């Protein structure tokens, strides 16, 4: 079959099972856009800014476990992808980005819209390609998908000069195995480590499992649960680990880290064994490394060998696929229980609930925790929530307990404001039969709200909950604690979000009282297509607990108990 490079791109996407791509056209990618007309099986979603395309591909990938695809033109189109690639890189999300490049003859001449995109994206991709010969094209795209979805997953970019997209070749799809000499992701653990890990697990008195994103990525939810239940080991979750264990499970102690549950953080600090699974000891979850979990032996399992001993030196470091490794370890794990340890954790949890603002508040102003908790209630805790970055993100993590994997999507590693709304659109494309809520701040929403037009054009059934506190709230919180309340550059004037929604053709509602929340959620669900709900909340709310950056993990700033002010 005589095909153009552009058609080969589409053929390759078809073979990878791609059914939707997110992108924005331009000169250097036009041949591929033209070829799309011959491939109606692949739906193209026209975004309003290329950053949105990357976040949509990312949301799609996080929601489905499949590779998300975005596409952009050369130069400014491609540079607009950088934030989204970096976001996906930090959170190990498999996406393939395809970019047009100026024709080969023009490369290196500062041609119109020429940017060294493979150069620019080396640090923010797992791998990238600049195609130099049409005969490599299909191989490289196939490799790109393979690299994106195997090992420690991540974004891969393929940059294709325009003349190669136009060139024609007798096309044969490269069937057969991919051979990459320098790419052998680790799979299983060696016997010595398996035995040593079991011994530590079986003899621990105060063990705790730290479950991260890797549990979902390797599909080890069952194995995690088995380990936790059999040996009665409490499970603490990272932000991206939410969903690895149902949060209403008695052994789940919730999120750890800077804004984690106090019980989790105390338990980590007092534990005698940490079993870290598919997480990477980010500074946001460890606090001061020097005083981190001082009494604990540590087992660390991660697919990426360079994560072992990176931040925390461990006693047993296993580079391997979590599901495989847990399956190796489990047979020798004894039934166990740690009543004293679990009781101690329960005490911390009780102390926390005495400090919970939901039970101690009698003011009138709507609070973000009330909004999130009611949203949880009125969506039966079953929605896919996609958050932006800031206070509302941490409040969602605290007040919307998730039961199922991949139902809470958020930019953790990079903390990318503007992620939430486009990623929610992508997630909805991936899981069209589930309710998807974008939970965003008034600040972050304004970074990518142009995608409302995309949502309308595509009639994407995604609900937007703006938590409007009139501030860049999380930054304001830092200013309150650490900069003597000098609120510089954090108070924010915003447009009338409901009118704005109306201009876009999006039904909307403003909520200022707790009694209205149920009605608002019902209103949102009663309309098919995008709906925007603006929740006007307390301006100077604080997210507690908080471990100040660099402080010991259990030295948290806590909300006072009632009457303790």
């Amino acid at each position, binding site marked *: 079959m005589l095909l153009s490079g552009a058609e080969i791109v589409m053929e390759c996407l078809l073979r990878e099972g791609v059914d939707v791509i997110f992108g924005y056209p331009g000169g250097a990618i036009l041949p591929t856009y033209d070829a799309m007309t011959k491939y109606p099986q692949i739906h193209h979603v026209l975004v309003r800014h290329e950053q949105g395309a990357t976040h949509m591909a990312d949301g799609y990938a996080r929601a489905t476990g499949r590779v998300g695809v975005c596409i952009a033109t050369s130069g400014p189109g491609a540079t607009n992808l950088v934030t989204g690639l970096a976001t996906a890189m930090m959170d190990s999300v498999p996406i393939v980005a395809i970019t047009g490049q100026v024709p080969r003859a023009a490369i290196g001449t500062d041609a119109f819209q020429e940017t060294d995109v493979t150069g620019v994206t080396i640090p923010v991709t797992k791998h990238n390609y600049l195609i130099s*010969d*049409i005969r*490599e094209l299909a191989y490289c795209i196939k490799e790109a998908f393979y690299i994106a979805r195997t090992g420690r997953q991540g974004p891969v970019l393929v940059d294709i000069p325009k003349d190669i997209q136009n060139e024609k070749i007798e096309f044969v799809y490269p069937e057969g195995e991919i051979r990459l000499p*320098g790419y052998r992701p680790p799979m299983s653990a060696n016997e010595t480590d398996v035995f040593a890990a079991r011994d530590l697990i079986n003899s621990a008195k105060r063990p705790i499992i730290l479950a991260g994103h890797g549990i979902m990525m390797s599909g080890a939810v069952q194995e995690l649960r088995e380990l936790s239940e059999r040996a009665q080991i409490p499970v603490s979750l990272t932000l991206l680990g939410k969903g690895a264990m149902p949060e209403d499970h008695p052994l789940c102690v919730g999120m750890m880290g800077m804004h984690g549950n106090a019980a989790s953080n105390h338990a980590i600090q007092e534990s005698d064994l940490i079993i870290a699974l598919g997480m990477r000891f980010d500074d946001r979850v460890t606090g001061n490394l020097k005083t981190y979990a001082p009494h604990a032996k540590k087992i660390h399992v991660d697919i*990426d060998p*360079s994560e072992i001993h*990176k931040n925390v030196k461990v006693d047993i470091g296993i580079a391997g696929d979590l599901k495989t490794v847990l399956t190796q370890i489990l047979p020798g794990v004894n039934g166990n229980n740690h009543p004293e340890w679990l009781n101690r954790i329960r005490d911390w949890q009780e102390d926390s609930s005495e400090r919970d603002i939901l039970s101690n508040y009698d003011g009138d102003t709507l609070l973000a925790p009330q909004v999130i908790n009611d949203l949880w209630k009125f969506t039966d805790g079953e929605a896919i929530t996609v958050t932006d970055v800031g206070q509302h993100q941490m409040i969602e993590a605290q007040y919307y307990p998730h039961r199922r994997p991949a139902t809470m999507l958020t930019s953790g590693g990079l903390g990318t404001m503007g992620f939430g709304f486009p990623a929610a659109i992508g997630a909805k494309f991936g899981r069209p039969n589930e309710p998807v809520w974008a939970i965003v701040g008034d600040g972050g929403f304004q970074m990518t709200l142009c995608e409302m037009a995309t949502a309308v054009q595509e009639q994407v059934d995604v609900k937007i909950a703006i938590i409007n506190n009139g501030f860049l709230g999380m930054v304001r919180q830092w200013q309150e604690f650490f900069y003597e309340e000098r609120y510089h550059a954090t108070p924010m004037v915003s447009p009338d979000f409901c009118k704005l929604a109306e201009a876009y053709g999006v039904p909307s509602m403003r909520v200022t009282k707790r009694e209205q929340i149920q009605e608002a959620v019902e209103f949102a669900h009663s309309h098919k297509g995008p709906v925007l709900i603006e929740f006007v909340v307390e301006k100077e709310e604080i997210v507690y607990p908080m471990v100040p950056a660099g402080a010991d993990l259990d030295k948290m700033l806590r909300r006072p108990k009632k009457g303790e002010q």
Partner: protein
Amino acid sequence: MSNSTSKQVVVALVENKPGVLNRVASLFRRRNYNVDSLTVGRTHKGHVSRMTIVVDVARTDVRQIVSNLYKLVNVIDVKALTGEPHVSRDLALIKVRTDDVESRNAVTEVCDRYPARIVDIGVKYAIVEITAQEDLVEHLIDELRPIGIVELVRTGVVAMGRGVRILDTDYEPVNHLQNAGDLERYGV
């Protein structure tokens, strides 16, 4: 090889493809690894290049460097050589002042005490070549400095494990170009 214990020699086999050096350099820069020297050249297999990298590991665990290098898709194999018996060499060309009898005699005298030789000599300057372990090269430079060094170039360290330790790969590249359809049109 320098005696300083914070230096480590890492060798990497990489695919001989455009951009690979850039990827390695980018990794070292963004991970804030301190590179003393980095050399790259082809091996006896045309599709495989070999890098010798001397890194200062005062702040970084060498295991981190090895596993991060290995994460690069084009890196076929990596090994830290320090701690294993190995041979390492640095080559320097040093142009020194020889514009009077004393300086000329001094240069000759110094070179006699090192595995060094004078490879070019003129009325004003001579070029000294030395191939040796890094610390010897450094000592020679120190001794020539008072005579008057006017130009200097070094290759950086290359290294190889001794004895039966072999770092090689039997990987043969897939020739994409041969497998993709109509070749004649491209004159292949």
